[in-house]
């Protein structure tokens, strides 16, 4: 027989899972939130989202092509995801040039400077967002009221429910408004129901597990009670839902096993509420996630998965 055979070690089968598949899966899970942001913020949302995605993809392409001189990986969907998540963390009246700076920081510093997808320590979209928040505090904290579909930079703004809560003022929105998203805030964070739909989708598709989001919810609620705040209002306001479901669960910057994930989530939940209560900013989600991103390697080192033979079940 002269035919050349392929010889390799087992296994000789592959599941067909791909990085691309996982990234696009998350993008699909973000569609409900995308729709709500367009419904409530119209033109502004469209401009911010398109600018953010396009610039993130472009910056990744340019950096890989000309700076690192490596094969471009923009097709794997991770740059699109970073762009969309960054946009979801921005107000709908943010000028384009600020968005571009945010994208450059997210992709350039947050992701590519560490070696690209899989090597970054921090969630790139949050790196971009927090950079903008600290650099442009006025623009980043003026939130248009929902329903101004044809306005962009000229939209009238108002304080967010979270800012009001933080200043001990009453919130003009009902809990139902906060649940469906008819409040002002960052593009993607307003609608809890849309985000929870995405959560359900990702659980069914097994893109993520429940551990991180649920740990965040539980510990944020507990910490709210301890701090004397209404846990329901805290869970449904600000970026907590978006952060817990889509940002904290970022594969790359979160721990590698269930136990680690629970610890990581618990700290994010508790830290968020502490920052909201005592910090200078009304919102603490982004900071809490970034702080815990930094602890992920430590968690991975000291918290090991449940070993076979570790727990003896009763026969």
């Amino acid at each position: 027989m002269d035919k050349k055979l392929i010889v390799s070690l087992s296994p000789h089968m592959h599941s067909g899972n791909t990085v691309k598949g996982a990234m696009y899966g998350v993008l699909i899970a973000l569609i409900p939130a995308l729709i709500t942001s367009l419904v409530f913020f119209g033109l502004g949302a469209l401009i911010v989202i398109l600018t953010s995605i396009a610039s993130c993809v472009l910056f990744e392409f340019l950096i890989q092509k000309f700076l690192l001189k490596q094969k471009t990986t923009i097709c794997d969907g991770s740059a699109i995801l970073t762009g969309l998540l960054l946009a979801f963390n921005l107000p709908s009246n943010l000028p384009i040039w600020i968005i571009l700076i945010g994208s450059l920081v997210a992709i350039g510093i947050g992701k590519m400077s560490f070696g690209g997808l899989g090597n970054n320590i921090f969630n790139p979209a949050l790196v971009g967002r927090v950079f903008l928040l600290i650099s442009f505090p006025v623009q980043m904290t003026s939130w248009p009221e929902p329903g101004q579909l044809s306005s962009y930079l000229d939209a009238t703004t108002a304080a967010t429910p979270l800012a009001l809560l933080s200043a001990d003022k009453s919130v003009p929105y009902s809990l139902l408004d906060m649940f469906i998203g008819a409040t002002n805030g960052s593009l993607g964070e307003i609608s809890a129901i849309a985000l929870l739909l995405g959560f359900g989708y990702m659980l069914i598709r097994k893109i993520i597990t429940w551990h991180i989001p649920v740990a965040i919810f539980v510990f944020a609620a507990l910490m709210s009670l301890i701090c004397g705040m209404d846990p329901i209002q805290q869970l449904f306001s600000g970026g907590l839902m978006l952060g817990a479901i889509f940002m904290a669960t970022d594969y790359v910057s979160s721990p590698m096993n269930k136990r680690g994930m629970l610890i990581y989530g618990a700290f994010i939940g508790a830290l968020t509420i502490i920052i909201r209560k005592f910090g200078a900013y009304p919102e603490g989600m982004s900071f809490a996630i970034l702080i815990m991103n930094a602890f992920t390697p430590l968690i991975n080192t000291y918290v090991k998965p449940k070993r076979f033979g570790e727990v003896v079940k009763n026969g």
Partner: protein
Amino acid sequence: MLKTFFLGGIHPAENKLSAQKKVELLDLPKQVIIPLGQHIGAPAQAVVKKGDKVKVGTLIAQAAGFVSANIHSSVSGTVLKVDVAPDSSGNLKPAIFIDVEGDEWEETIDRSTTLNKDITLDSKAIVDKIKECGIVGLGGATFPTHIKLMPPPGTKAEVIIINAVECEPYLTSDHQLMLEKAEEILVGVEILMKSVNVSKAIIGIENNKPDAIKIMTEKAIAHPNIIIQPLKVKYPQGGEKQLIDACISRQVASGALPISTGAVVQNVGTAFAVYEAVQKNKPLFERIVTVTGKSVQKPSNFLVRVGTPISNLIEAAGGLPEDTGKIISGGPMMGKAMPSLNSNVVKGCSGILIIKDLEARRKEMTDCIRCAKCVDVCPMGLTPSYLMRVSELSMWDKAEEDRIMDCIECGSCSFTCPANRTLLDYIRLGKGKVGGILRARASSAATK
């Protein structure tokens, strides 16, 4: 809820193309090449020489050492030579070449098909008979069976667990054996129970073989001490530790022997071979081999004599397809890719799987995205991505600390990885290195 093991596991596509295909007798080849190392442990020593006449069942090589097994001729004819022949990995290994003349069996072998239920031998005689007949584990590991039936001092067997899960995709030889030889298997299990003086046996069968579960359950009514345990379909349930966990909910501790849980695990094919050895005085020289693959014309289950050239099996299944890329001895998850067709059926060969060229190639590997899917599927609770990384970096102390030696090489991690990382390749490398370090440490501790 069906029982299964509790940590990790995957669901590869089953592809049982040859399921419910009746076992066919493969024509005798013109020549057989019987390797001397068909089991784990020392290769057997040839006791025949060129020109010797042998019959079917004649002892041709004797166990050399404690962990070793006898080998018997699978054909009648003349010994051509004792030489070397390529094994399934392509390495040249000692083997006995026999030219086939007729099909004359040793008179001591009972060739009748009547079911022989009465077990007359005592436990010691059973173990001796199994040893004499060269029975080894037929699930693929080929560990000499008689050793498993002699629990080391300080341990006690409590239950026999029969591995009939056949969790590897494609393979159907055990399935078909159960459909055709249910009663013989049950008697074989009774023999195994008697050999280690236990009064309970569990046969674990995955739920994707309802016909086998049905027939085994019916026939087991006559054997009240044998439980047929349907199991949820999950790979790698056929792993010894996973099967013990699934059947009796006990876990073998890291580094401990399975017998520490009181369980003695044997493959269902082995149970049948034990029946034939003890009740029919028939040594192990033939077995059922599944020949399968998506492009194979006629996926089949063949009863094959040990030493038959692999190419004969493929011919009988319709020939080698044009688009062949890889030929595997065993299943797709743990089987070995063969470099050529120049090898022969051995005791542990459960299947020949032919993979299309398109499916045989690995996809390009990209950076780890730390999605932790490998951690989720690992049945041993390891962190494959970390073990790969430390093996790449030759950090053997870290690998040892993170229990690299616990890996059972099931391949679930590599199967699942979205970045196509060659996790198991590197873990194997690490296991080899760490194993060497451990042995060196043990021997230096012994000399002190």
